């Protein structure tokens, strides 16, 4: 009885300590590594500054996700997705790629997209929404393209049919 109480107290404590994670659903175990981000990040802080830091990236990812999850062409794909988690790890991934001092804690691109049925057309739709979001954040076009150069090869892992 006492043991059970201690356990539930510990669980409560753990939940209180990580209020953000509490809203996320668990995923199958995987090995955490920055290599999961799929590309080598930019050196220096020039790129992250071009994106107005982690706050800029956060605004861009929020707008892009709002767009792909409401666009009738792509929203079905996200119907069963844990958006809390996707939002968090996607922001991590972009900040990490832009040279920010964060770790990417999500899965690798192949594992994350294995069962999503993404087609090449969907990939390009997402990129276009990303471009629009970067435009709204006033990220210079050349800096946008430098990020896209890092993301484009992920097509091979994201597009599965």
């Amino acid at each position: 009885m006492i043991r059970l109480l201690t356990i539930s107290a510990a669980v409560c404590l753990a939940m209180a300590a990580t209020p953000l994670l509490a809203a996320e659903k668990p995923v199958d175990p995987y090995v955490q590594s920055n290599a999961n981000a799929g590309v080598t990040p930019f050196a220096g802080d020039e790129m992250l500054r071009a994106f107005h830091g982690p706050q800029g990236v956060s605004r861009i990812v929020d707008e892009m996700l709002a767009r792909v999850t409401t666009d009738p062409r792509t929203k079905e794909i996200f119907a069963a997705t844990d958006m809390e988690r996707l939002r968090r790890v996607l922001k991590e991934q972009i900040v990490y790629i832009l040279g920010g001092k964060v770790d990417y804690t999500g899965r690798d691109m192949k594992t994350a997209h294995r069962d999503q049925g993404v087609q090449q057309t969907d990939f390009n739709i997402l990129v276009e929404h990303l471009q629009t979001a970067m435009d709204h954040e006033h990220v210079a076009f050349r800096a946008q393209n430098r990020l896209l150069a890092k993301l484009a090869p992920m097509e091979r892992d994201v597009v599965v049919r």
Partner: protein
Amino acid sequence: MRGFRAAAGVAAALAAYAAHADGQELRPSGKLLLTGGVSDVEGAGGGGLATWATITGYETRDGIGANLHGTMVDLPDYRFTAFGGAVGFLDRIEISYARQAFDTGDTGAKLGIGKGFTFHQDVFGAKLRVAGDAVYGQDRWLPQVAVGAQFKKADRGALVKALGAKDDQGVDWYVAATKVLLDQSLVLDGTIRATKANQTGLLGFGGPKNDGYQAQFEGSAALLLTRRLAVGVEYRTKPDNLGLKEDDWMDVFAAYAVNKTLSVTAGYADLGEIATFGGQRGLYLSVQAGF
């Protein structure tokens, strides 16, 4: 005739490919703006003067794209126009057609062939993407590579033969390599073409100086300025089979994608000396509507 056989082969390959892709959803309009190039003077996907390895239209490998285009080059002594269409299948195969007209206007009288005398040419093209991906392969050096054939038929057979051309029809073969360097916001193309064509075929094929195939180069370099706007330069070498001091062609251009349906290319082309009239430089204008 050989050109038609090549086209039939490509059609068979297309059917096989479509069967292979069976079970996938067909989707329209997925490519990123301007990444498929525009329509060149011979009707193929490319820049203005150079044929690229990209497959025309905004389709991805999940769809079919098509476009129609009209092009005009207003030269001091001539006017060149071309109209045509192209279809791209699954971002793999491109079939194209263009009808070119070369109007000699007042110059026709000076050349002794009659005012307003116009040369025409039909160009049937087929292109097959064989390797690489111009856009997604950003982590690789390998460009997108395509091979193609253009069957060309000039309509003024008697006259072009009187000028010394050996034939009024011929086939060009080419290998094109195109790379989008997103990191630099650049698009580069280099294409090698085996051809016998005089003034790309408008003045027939082969001649007294040479009647064999010769390898020629055509290339483009374009800078992406915005999602909709690219500016670039092009160069195209040509043989001089007729001994009429045929010059290389070059241009500078700006391509603007109004949207995914409409793009406009405006430029300045230098076509050098054509049929003894030198300094043929003028405005290049092309409009393309895609579906």
